[in-house]
């Protein structure tokens, strides 16, 4: 059945859901592209046969053309949705991706991520004096200070007023929200809500 492999690609993305990026299915994409090429060649052959006088081939040509369009649409959708997912990762994780996630991206996707990073960094740098990091302050500030607990040893941390805090596992601290927000997002600190 034409277009089945392409549908598989889309299903793969849908199954993995919002939160994880499945590994780049290089084989799947390659198979869809090969199917497209073979459909196209068959069509070309049928078209030249029709020109030579044979009839009854039009239905086949139309069917293969539709399959071609569908395959193209599925592949583009697969690639585009992966890009959107990777873009979301930049806003969640910052400019350095954890190794496990990078493992699931193809080399071109890693390159796209770096390009996107550069684009974004250029834009953020141009805002105001010395730039504004738009990936901070994702949620409206509820309070100035927050109570956090360390999930892992993270060494020393210097606060805005100069005091140095040692982040040991399970230690609790009362810090300025703006300073430790990025650590909370990375999972190093856990925000304690009473």
């Amino acid at each position, binding site marked *: 059945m034409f277009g089945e492999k392409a549908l598989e690609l889309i299903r793969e993305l849908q199954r993995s859901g919002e939160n994880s990026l499945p590994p780049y299915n290089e084989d799947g994409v390659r198979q869809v592209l090969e199917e497209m090429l073979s459909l196209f060649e068959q069509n070309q052959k049928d078209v030249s046969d029709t020109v030579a006088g044979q009839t009854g081939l039009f239905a086949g040509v139309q069917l293969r053309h539709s399959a071609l369009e569908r395959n193209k649409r599925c592949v583009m959708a697969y690639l585009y949705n992966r890009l959107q997912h990777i873009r979301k990762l930049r806003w969640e994780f910052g400019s350095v991706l954890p190794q496990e996630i990078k493992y699931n991206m193809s080399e071109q996707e890693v390159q796209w991520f770096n390009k996107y990073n550069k684009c974004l960094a*250029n834009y953020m740098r141009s805002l105001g004096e010395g730039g504004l990091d738009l990936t901070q302050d994702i949620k409206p500030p509820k309070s100035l200070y927050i109570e956090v607990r360390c999930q892992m040893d993270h060494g020393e941390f210097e606060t805005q007023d100069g005091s140095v805090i040692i982040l040991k596992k399970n230690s609790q601290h009362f810090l300025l929200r703006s300073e430790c927000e990025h650590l909370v997002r990375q999972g190093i600190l856990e925000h304690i809500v009473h």
Partner: protein
Amino acid sequence: MSDISNLIEEDSDNDGEAMTAAEVLQKLEEAWLNEKFAPDLLENKSDIVDCMMDQLQEMENNIKLAKRGDFKVSLHRMEIDRIRFIISSYLRRRLEKVERFAVCVLEAEEKRDDEEASRLTPEEHQYAKDYQESVEMHMKNLALRHMPPNSQKMDPNLTTIRPNVDSYVFLKVNKHQEGVLVEEESSDAGEEVLDLVKGDQHIIRYRPISSLVENGSVTLM
């Protein structure tokens, strides 16, 4: 808000008009809410954003001069955090629209005459170009290049994402408006004209009132 006015020595000049910091913040909040709820990219308010960022910088400098442990410092820090959040949220929402509607936005920029003001800041324009190019290159290299010759182009009619200008929005009326054309004359219904009274709230399609949002007669909520 009087705290901020106390901290700031000079008035902020905006296009030759002196506005207090409080008024600029009010305008920023309005711009932020409008941008948040409008389906389309609105005019850029870079003068307000720049002004506010300068104020933030001044407030940060003034805090550094204050005594440690002074109670006012916490209040001002909170204000700084809040303002920074509003600015970030506003710019993020704009960036999101620029990314989604990159093709549309670049098209509109091409068509624009020189006298009309651009909706994009120059930095946003550059960002849209870079982003669009990176996505196209990626698609070309990974897929389009390997497809049969007839299919190697992306058809803009099929692939461009356009803002849904007909989506419904909530609005609040700031200035009285008579005779706003809501529905065009069609074979089923006559044209529908609405009078907007100050203080009223409506839910309405975005398209007929988009110009009113731009000139400030209504705010989205």
